[in-house]
């Protein structure tokens, strides 16, 4: 697939087969606009065509992104995106499979898929639009709600926030990164790196919800994000962990690729599907064991 480039991959290509720009139904200023811009940049830079892309959207404001740019897209159940992506990639390794979902979708209802896909390590990119809330259902707390807040007492109903990066590392993701949609150019660089990773890549993107999260705003993020130091070795899991500890201690949020360590994996071809590949299936060898 990748060798066929039937259309010039310019930034404009991404507006075809997509919802018209003026019909995008995000709130003005929503962080997801930045993610959309960054995605287009990364795809354009890597000269990926819309034909070879399969975007799997979560359910939420964020998941709508799949219809806001060109490329094949699927959207099933809330929380299920990564599992569909896994199956699609296993079936057709030539597809560029990108999962685009919210923090609620990924870490609340979808956390089981997240944990298991980290272990399975398909060559799938996940971009999480992390806004600390359930945007689409009008602002309830997501698992990352409370980031940066100074809360002293917890309850079962209101537990402390959750660390996407640490969970990804622990569960076995082979690329773990973080970006900020307030700086789409920088984010695009991270996405592009993650898109080329031979394994499961998670990018947690801080994508402010201007309507329902009045705490983790653009300004708040600007005051708290910090690029990963140049000397950081993403190949070393301990270095990754230490980096997170260091940033936590300083109350800062790292941007960049924190961990990258591809795993030795079995290669697979696209699964047979056309009649000419299937017509002559000979099941006789399967019968012998029943004699």
């Amino acid at each position, binding site marked *: 697939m990748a060798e*066929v480039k039937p259309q010039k991959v310019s930034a404009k290509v991404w507006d075809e087969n997509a919802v018209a720009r003026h019909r995008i139904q995000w709130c003005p200023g929503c962080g997801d606009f930045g993610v959309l811009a960054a995605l287009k940049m990364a795809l354009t830079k890597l000269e990926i065509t819309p*034909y070879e892309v399969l975007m799997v959207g979560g359910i939420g404001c964020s998941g709508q992104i799949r219809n806001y740019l060109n490329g094949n897209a699927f959207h099933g159940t809330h929380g299920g995106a990564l599992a569909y992506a896994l*199956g699609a990639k296993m079936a057709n390794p030539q597809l560029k499979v990108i999962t685009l979902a919210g923090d609620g979708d990924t870490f609340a209802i979808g956390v*089981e898929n997240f944990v298991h896909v980290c272990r399975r390590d398909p060559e799938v990119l996940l971009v999480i639009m992390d806004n600390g809330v359930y945007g689409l259902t009008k602002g309830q707390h997501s698992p990352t709600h409370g980031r940066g807040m100074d809360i002293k007492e917890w309850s079962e109903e209101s537990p402390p926030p959750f660390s996407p990066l640490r969970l990804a590392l622990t569960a076995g993701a082979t690329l773990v990164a973080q970006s900020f949609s307030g700086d789409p150019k920088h984010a695009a660089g991270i996405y592009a790196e993650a898109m080329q990773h031979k394994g499961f890549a998670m990018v947690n993107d801080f994508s402010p919800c201007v309507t329902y999260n009045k705490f983790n705003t653009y300004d708040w993020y600007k005051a708290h994000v910090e690029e990963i130091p140049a000397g950081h070795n993403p190949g070393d899991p301990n270095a990754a962990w230490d980096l997170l500890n260091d940033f936590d201690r300083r109350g800062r949020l790292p941007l960049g690729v924190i961990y990258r360590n591809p795993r030795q994996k079995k290669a697979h071809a696209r699964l047979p599907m056309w009649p000419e590949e299937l017509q002559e*299936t000979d099941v006789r060898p399967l019968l012998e064991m029943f004699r």
Partner: protein
Amino acid sequence: MIVNHLKLLVGGVQLRDGVVTVSDILGRIFTRAGLHVLAMERGYASTIYGAHQYDPMVVAEEPPVSWGDPEIDILVALDYDSNPDAKEQPNRDTILRHSKYLKDGGLLVYDSSTGDIATDTLERRGIKIFPIPARNIARDELKRDVVKNVVTVGGLFRLLEFDRDATHLRALLEERFLRKGREIVELNLRAAQRGLEVVESVLKAKTWTDAGYRLEPRPTKGPMLLLSGNDALSIGAIRAGCRFYAGYPITPASAILEFMEEHLPKFGGRAMQGQNERESIRAAIGAAITGVRSMVGTSGPGLSLKVEEFGVSGMSEVPMVIVDTQRAGPSTGMPTKSEQGDLFLVAYGGHGEIPRIVLAPATQEECYTLMIEAHHLADKYQCPVFFLTDLNLSEGRKVVPESFFGQQAVRIDRSTLVRESDLRRDGSYKRFALTPSGISPRLVPGTVGGVIKVTGSEHDERGFVSTDPAIRKAMMEKRARKMEVYLDEDVKPPQVFGKPEGKPVLVGWGSTRPLLQEAQQRLRGRGVETAVVHFTHLWPFHTAAAKPLLEKASAVIAVEQNFSGQFADVIQTYCLVPVRRIVKYNGLPIYPSDVVGGVEQILRSGAQRVRVGVEAPAPVKVSEGD
């Protein structure tokens, strides 16, 4: 002397006593000898070790009509110790549970390693008793505990005057053990010989010339196979071009997963043990999006967890074959007992309304053929196709000639898929085009020149989300139209045995067909003429074929292995005829005698509903695991 016609039952303590080992050896060797074996019920517990386990098996010269009644000719009790809960004697669990079903004049073989037991009441019924101290022989004489099962097999073969020169047994043992060394083979043969000797000494002591039963090999045309419904449907799926399978382990569907994991890669496919029920079906849907024929298998609890994905498949028009090997519910229910309790779930489960097809094979053969059809239908109608077996059909084994699998011409028709060459490059392709049939040509991602947006929200022809009332209405009708086309072009009418006009009609679906046919024969023998109407294509319900048939009946009697008579309700909905019910839900198979009794009761008293299975065979109440 009864020749080539018997039902035997092997029982013992699960995992410990080798019930399955013995019944496997017997089944395989009888099959090779050209006999017909039907071993549908598999009596085991949902714990690994320690519960009572039993395997009944019908052996006959001709294919048996059904699994018959609980009565048995030969009882083989492998358990060697006593049941501490049982006040009664004899106190081997297997004998306690099953000896009341032994026919007068039948045979009992039991492991007498811990001593002979009191069997006077059995003997008074003319039952011939063969105590074999198999475990002692194995342990003390042959120094290998595991060969105790072969001691018993050897004794049994002697009783049945079968394989006297041990040709079959030797062949099987060599296949299995030769790579471990000839000594193992010889040790096993010696074990069989010891069993034979014990039996001969009993015969001699009792001055019996024979045991009254004999199995004689029969010639066959070509090799015969002994396989289960799960085996047959897995082979069918591979033949149909299924190349992605996902399943989360669950009784009785796990065997499909294991089969696929082992064999699918040889055909270029992939099989995946899901980390849970949802991951399985979602990954399978993901694979199906790319165009691959894809399938999942599970049982009741796993199916309940997949319900939201039925809607995804239906709404996004991604084909999916979903196998449900039904077991007794609700909830965790009885994981190792069979039931037909999931029809409502597959027909009605899910919020909102989707097109869906439900198929239910009746036999191991149909597990193969109907599975090929299932994949074809999923592909054509781009919706979920449910494949309903049940524990007994999925795990039960039957002899099928190997040639059967070559008979079926299989054409892989993927004409609803759009290829790159079919695609006009003007961007006019619409994934959800509103066609007269409701079937929209399907493009898969990766095709140069076309892009699809596939979504579980309501959408327009291009797949973009829409709640425009006119679009919504058109899309609901488009999806529903596919099922009208299915009812025109693909549904199969029920099979009819006998003439329904003015007669009681026995209605069944799925695995009960053999049973209904046997019940019909028996009723005929008792002067009651019935017709049997049996469905494999359950949903959408084929009213046009069913209603005229059933309206003519003097009484419509559905026979189902569930509580409410789920299919009876479906018939009432669509045919508006009252349906009487014979239902059984105690975990045991429906027996022909249940149906005969039920029908007679209905005809006698006009009963609307007969709940059979009052008498339970288990004298000892024991709590189990899950």
